[in-house]
Structures are given as structure tokens and as C-alpha cells.
């Protein structure tokens, strides 16, 4: 499959059971949809895109069947334009800002059009970009997720060579191991990485965990700059009593197994699953469980429906697929028999207004009840990789997030740059792609300042 690195995904993986929710358009559909675009001046869709993809331009190119031109327009703004086309929350970004909403008409299907153009580039191995003249500078990038990939690609355009240090056996970061499969299956995420690496001059070292296989000190010594694009750490464990049983898993861990682990399945006896949390990871797991055929999938959230940090449109879809929400509910204990989960003991909560801040959650005495379930997925956050950050001299942190100069991606250590989830605490792929690009330009400016 990949030509720039060796990887073989197991054939039998659970994610294969999930359908593509936004399947590719036919060439005819593409032209018809592209012809609907008004070609707005100073287009709101472009303004809504964190990477400022010139949406009207690429859509016009699609309308004239200039598909290569369309791919170039997208990828020159966002080299991860393929995964973004499939995973971006377009409802709140480009498509959400389409002026057709004001006319009560369907917005242009920008995501699907973008997928058509970029998938063509992947399918045909289209080579659009050439690296800049060799600068002799080398940059180490920690992590091979969207932020590092976007950064490395931009660095190559500027002539700097790159080495990506990835702890996992697969590249692509969350695109490969965390995105809901009905948006982007792992193999397609890997395909995009492969296509990106076609530019050459990017070395990918997998299974190379920084801190164990190689130290920060070595990177700082051997490279001219270091980019930190490590994302977030492990799932925050459920603190409820009795949570240390097999049937209780973290959301990120479960999603990764579902996507990548050969032969992994949900045991057949499991008919009901409780997913704890109110963020987008929780919503993803809910939808994935429902679509994998789990009969009773319940979202358990300590605040109310409106207070969920996850996207409303994702919850609407989850509900349409049959999930139910249990609001103002806090799990206090996991119930189990012989090591198998049988339910959750929960307590109802209420919100108490806080002056000038988010309401706090207060449990209601005597409101305990039991929710029957055979599996619990905790989507209540991820740890920050503080140990790694601690090893980087001079790095400044804010609540576990790396502090950078937003215009250059530079950290308090002038030789170290950062972007993506480890900086923003967990946003979209498109934000990471933008961060990576900005940091690459910051690194280039830093190199120039040394001359």
C-alpha cells in the first residue's frame, strides 16, 4: 500500500464494519454541485476555514473538470486537505458559513467536493509540489500526527529536511487511530501520509518514542530545531469505585483498538454500553457503538444536554441512530459480577450558577439509581504529556498545554516550536494542520534570524 514506509494493517478490524457516511460523489454529481456555488466575493467559507482554503476557486475548478487544479488549490493551503475534507466539522466551519443558509437552501457540499479533488490526487499519486532548495537545516518533529505532518511538509517547501519521531507503529496520529471510521478509516489516513511524504526529504521513524528510544537532549543537539506535535496522552481514568475491571475502557484506547487491532471485537454478550462524557470523543463512541449493533447505548453526562462541549450536530445524528442521553448524571460506582460489568451506580446532579463562570455541578443526595450495562467507555478527557514537556528546557506550560507565540509557533525555548492538540488542548485536524504550517514558517524565520 504505502510506498514511503512499511506498514500492514490487519485485515480483520472492527472499523471495517462501519459504513462511509459521506461516500464519494460521482464525477457528474461533483459538476452539478460545483455549479451551484455562487463564487462569493471574499467568501465566508474561506474565512471560516482555519487553513483559509480558497473554496470558491477550487469549486470553480471542479465545475470545469479541472480536478488537478482543484487539488492543488486545496493542498497548497492545507496539505491535509484530504483528511480534513472527511473529518472537518463542516457544519460549523465552511458549510456552516455558506450564504445559501440565508436563502434557506442547502449549503454547498464543500467537504464532499474537497474529498473528490484530494482523493483524485491520492488515487493518481499526483505530484504537485517540489521541495525548496536544500538549506542544510534539519528539523526533528515529535509525533507523526497532523500537526507534525503539516509542519514537515511546509518545511520541505522551504528546503529544510525533516525527521518525524513517532512512538506508535503507524503514522498519522489521531487521523489513523482516533477518527470515527465512518468519517475516515485508518487505511485512508495512512494513504494521505504516504502521498504527503512523496515530496521527499521527510524521514519517518516509527516506534521511536522520544524519552525512551531517543532523548530530547539528543534531538536538541542533533537538529537545528524541534517541533512538538505530540497531541494528548492517555485517557483520563474513571474515578468511580470498582472501575478497575475489564469492561471499563477509555474512549481513546477503545477507538484505537477498534480501528487498528486485528481480530478485536466487542464480546457478543454485550447488549448495552454506557459512554461517560459530553465531548466529541464521547459522541463518536456513542455513534460507533450504535452502528456496530449495540442495542442500548447511553450517553451519561453530568451536565445538561445544552452544556455538552461536543458538537450539537453530532449528537443529533447519534440520537437519530438510536442513542439516548442521560443528563445531569454522575457515575459513582461500576457494578460488576465475577469481573464482568453489570451496571453503573449513578447519582443525579444539578447545576449551581457560578458568578462569572461556568456553572458547577452538585450531586443531589438520595438520588442514586442504577443503570444496567455490560460495558463502560470513559470519555472524560486525556492526560497532558507533562513528563515529555518537563524534559524540554525552558518550555512554558499553561494547564499542561504548551505555550507558544501564535504567529510563529515558537515556545519559550527559541529552538522548540509546537502546535496541534498539545497546544490547544484538543481541537480539530484542520487546526493542527494550520498550526503545523505556521510553525514551519516560524522555524524558517528562526533559521533566517541565525544567519
Amino acid at each position, binding site marked *: 500500500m504505502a510506498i514511503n514506509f512499511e506498514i500492514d494493517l490487519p485485515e480483520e478490524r472492527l472499523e471495517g464494519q462501519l459504513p462511509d457516511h459521506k461516500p464519494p460523489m460521482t464525477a457528474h454529481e461533483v459538476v452539478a454541485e460545483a455549479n451551484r456555488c455562487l463564487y*462569493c*466575493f471574499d467568501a465566508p467559507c474561506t474565512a471560516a476555514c482555519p487553513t483559509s482554503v480558497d473554496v470558491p476557486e477550487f469549486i470553480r475548478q471542479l*465545475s470545469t473538470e479541472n480536478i488537478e487544479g482543484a487539488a492543488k488549490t486545496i493542498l497548497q493551503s492545507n496539505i491535509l486537505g484530504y483528511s480534513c475534507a472527511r473529518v472537518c466539522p463542516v457544519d460549523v466551519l465552511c458549510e456552516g458559513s455558506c450564504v445559501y443558509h440565508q*436563502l434557506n437552501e442547502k449549503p454547498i457540499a464543500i467537504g464532499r467536493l474537497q474529498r473528490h479533488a484530494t482523493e483524485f490526487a491520492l488515487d493518481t499519486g499526483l505530484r504537485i509540489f517540489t521541495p525548496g532548495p536544500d538549506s542544510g537545516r534539519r528539523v526533528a518533529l515529535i509525533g507523526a500526527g497532523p500537526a507534525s505532518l503539516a509542519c514537515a511538509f511546509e518545511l520541505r517547501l522551504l528546503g529544510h529536511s525533516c525527521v518525524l519521531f513517532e512512538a506508535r507503529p503507524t503514522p498519522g496520529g489521531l487521523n489513523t487511530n482516533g477518527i470515527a471510521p465512518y468519517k475516515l478509516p485508518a487505511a485512508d489516513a495512512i494513504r494521505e501520509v504516504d502521498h504527503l511524504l512523496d515530496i521527499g526529504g521527510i524521514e519517518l521513524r516509527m516506534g521511536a518514542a522520544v524519552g525512551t528510544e531517543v532523548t530530547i537532549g539528543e534531538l536538541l543537539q542533533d537538529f537545528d530545531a524541534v517541533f512538538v506535535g505530540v497531541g494528548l496522552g492517555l485517557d483520563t481514568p474513571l474515578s468511580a469505585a470498582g472501575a478497575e475491571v475489564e469492561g471499563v475502557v477509555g474512549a481513546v484506547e477503545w477507538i484505537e483498538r477498534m480501528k487498528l487491532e486485528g481480530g478485536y471485537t466487542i464480546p457478543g454478550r454485550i447488549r448495552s454500553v454506557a459512554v461517560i462524557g459530553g465531548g466529541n470523543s464521547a459522541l463518536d463512541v456513542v455513534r460507533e457503538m450504535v452502528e456496530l449493533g449495540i442495542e442500548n447505548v447511553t450517553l451519561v453526562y453530568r451536565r445538561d444536554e445544552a452544556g455538552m462541549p461536543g458538537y450539537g450536530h453530532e449528537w443529533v445524528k447519534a440520537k437519530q441512530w438510536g442513542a439516548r442521553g442521560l443528563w445531569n448524571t454522575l457515575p459513582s460506582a461500576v457494578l460488576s459480577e465475577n469481573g464482568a460489568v453489570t451496571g453503573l451506580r449513578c447519582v443525579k446532579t444539578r447545576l449551581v450558577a457560578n458568578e462569572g463562570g461556568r456553572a458547577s455541578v452538585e450531586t443531589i443526595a438520595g438520588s442514586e439509581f442504577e443503570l444496567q450495562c455490560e460495558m463502560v467507555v470513559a470519555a472524560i478527557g486525556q492526560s497532558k504529556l507533562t513528563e515529555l514537556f518537563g524534559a524540554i528546557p525552558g518550555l512554558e506550560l499553561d494547564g499542561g498545554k504548551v505555550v507558544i507565540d501564535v504567529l510563529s509557533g515558537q515556545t519559550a525555548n527559541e529552538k522548540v516550536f509546537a502546535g496541534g492538540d498539545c497546544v490547544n488542548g484538543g481541537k480539530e485536524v484542520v487546526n493542527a494542520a494550520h498550526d503545523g504550517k505556521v510553525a514551519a514558517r516560524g522555524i524558517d524565520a528562526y533559521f533566517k534570524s541565525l544567519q
Partner: protein
Amino acid sequence: MSDLKVNFAGIKSPNPFWLASAPPTNSGAQIMRAFDEGWGGAVWKTLGQPITNVSSRFGATQYRGTRIVGFNNIELITDRPLEVNLKEITEVKKRYPNNAVIASIMVETREEWKDLIKRCVDAGADGLELNFGCPHGMCERGMGSAVGQEPRVCGDITAWAVEDSTVPVIVKLTPNVGNINLPARAAAASGARALSLINTIKSIIGVDLERGVLLPRVHELGTNGGYCGPAVKPIALFMVGQLGKDPEVNIPLSGIGGIDSWRDALEFIFLGASTVQVCTAVMHRGYRIVRDMLDGTERFMKDHGYETIDQMVGKALPSYTDWGHLDLNYEVVAEIDSELCIGCQLCVTACRDGAHDCISTVEGTRVPVVDVEQCIGCNLCHHVCPVPECLEMVEVDNGKEPMSWKAYEAALARGENPPHPGKSTHQTHF
């Protein structure tokens, strides 16, 4: 109650909607089906000497997903035996005595014209239409538009036909001329009872970029064809209007060119046509489009108090004048309804790149503003705005007396010193 019946140069028809001479009138079976749907008349696919057609023979222009905006063909006249066509004309007239059946004809020599005319009249045709319009293939053999482009030849052959015919002779004109009035006057002067226009426009519909060959492609070659369909309607309207107001062409007109709906048909009628002929729209969607043509026309007439088609013929002609008579002091400016505006700013781009740069964006809103002092009222923004009634041109009472260019020049010639008419906008942007 509105009456759609027409008497077109002595040819009676239950309504003014006729099928033009073309593939939809290729056979008696087709024409009878068309009459069943409601068509008032049909001009038979042109009869003449035997020919052979090529495949393929049609091409089309598509615009942003809309198919057949324009259409062209390289088909010749009928390729069916004359005897069969004549027998079918007789049969159709027998079964549909109240519908108009016109024989379109095109031959070369005087003898051929005389013979064919007699046979068509004997077959029962209500009228003849001389095809002086076909701009491809037949003109290479000295017929069709080769005749229509030469007013003298056009007049001569018309005179033969009029002499030989006992039914009304209609002359079908080609638009492939510099001045449509000249062949029209020649035909009228030679005794033509009516004119029909336009035939198709000489065209190349497109090029197959992969093969580097003209479209439609006949093996490895292509040729120029005749252009028709919705895209040609404005050209046809112009030519009908030209003849409608020409006092030397004082005979009925049958309007042809891109008619797709009752609205299109009425525009031709308002410019002087008293019947209309349709082809491309039927080739695209079939005979049943006539149902709405009849229904829509009747409703329009009822709503506007017209009792007969004749009352509408030429209704817009008094407004058709020379540019020099237009009032230079009449002023409209663009006005944007901020409630309806969706913020696409197409008007901004259009005015900036294609007009007078007097619509701008405003900080904090996507609704643009019009600089009415600089707006020259060109109407471009109105046409690009995708929202109905959002961007309209509104009249400005500028207190000026009407003044056309001709009136202005006349005043100057009289030694007067009137103010220069029109709005002066003198902005510079760098």
C-alpha cells in the same frame, strides 16, 4: 373568453403554436400525435430531391449543468421518399382538417419548384414554406441560405412559387445576413403572403479537445451547422422586431427561434409575429410542452384583457426605437435590500471588475453599500444578484427634462446651448 384561433395569411389554425420544419415534423404519425397534444399547425420536414444524412448530426451547448442551452444540427432535408411524405400529408389533412399543415420545400430549378409545388398542393397542404434558410449542407448545393442571402434570387424564386401555387406562400428567412430587411422586402415584393424567421444560425457548436475535431463529429471530420435553441432567442426577437416595424414588409410573420414557453411565444407576438414555430424545445422535451403553452397564453390573455391573438401582435413595437431616441436624463440606481441580502457580494465583484466600481463592502457586515452618486444605473448588479427582489434598480427623480442624443444634437444645431444630458460620474480609483 380568450380565443386562440388565428388566420395566418389565409391559413386557419386553432392556435398560433406550430411545429417548425424539423425532425419533429418528419412524418405523419408524429404530426398527428402532436396535433393530439394541442399543436395548432405543423410545417412538414422540408421536401426536395432525395438526400442522404450523416451520423451523428446534432450538437449542444451546456451551461453550468443546464443541458441544451443552444443546439445545432448538420441534418439536411427529409430523407424519406417524396411519395410517402405526400401520401401522409393527405392522410393528416383528412384526419385533422382543422389543423394547419404546411409543406416546407426546397429544390433547385424552375421545373423542380413547379412540379413539387403542384404535388404538395394536390396532396392537400394548406400552405407552402420556401426554405431559404438552411445554412449547412444544402447551401453548398446552391439552396437554402444560399438563396436567402441573395435578395434578388430570393425574390425571383418567390415569384415562381407564387405564380405556381394556389395556396399561400410563406418564405422562411435565414438570419445569416447583414440586413434581414433586404431579403424580407424582396420576398414581400414578389408576392410572398407571409415570412417565417429565423432559420438556424451558421455555427460550430464546439470542438472535441481530446480528438481535436469539430462537434458533432462524423468519423474524423466535422462541419459547420445551424444553431438554434434558447440561446438564439434574442437574435430571433431582434430580427422579427426589425421586420415587424418595417413598412415595406407588410405581411404576417411567423416567429421562430428558441421558443420554449408561452412567455417566449408572447414576446415574439408582441414584436409582430402572429404565429410561432417551435422545434428545439420539442426535441428536448416532447410535444406535450404545448399544453402549458396553450394554458399559459390563455391565462395571460384573460388576466390582461386580450380576446384575440391579433390584439397582441406587435404590442411592443411602438417601444422599439433607435438608441438616439432614448432619454439620456432618465436615471435609475441600484438599491440593496439589506433584509434579503445573503452577503455573497457578487454585486461587489461585478461592479468592481465589470462596471463602475460603486458598490463596496462595509466593515462588520456582509451587506454591501451602493454609492448612489457614482452609480450609473447599468443594471449589472441586479443581474448577478442570486436573490429575487434583493437588488433592484430604482428610479431617481433628478428634476431633469427628458433629453435624447438626437434631441440634444438638434438643439445644438439650432444654436441652443442645452446642458449636456445624462449623469456625470467622475471618480478615480488608484
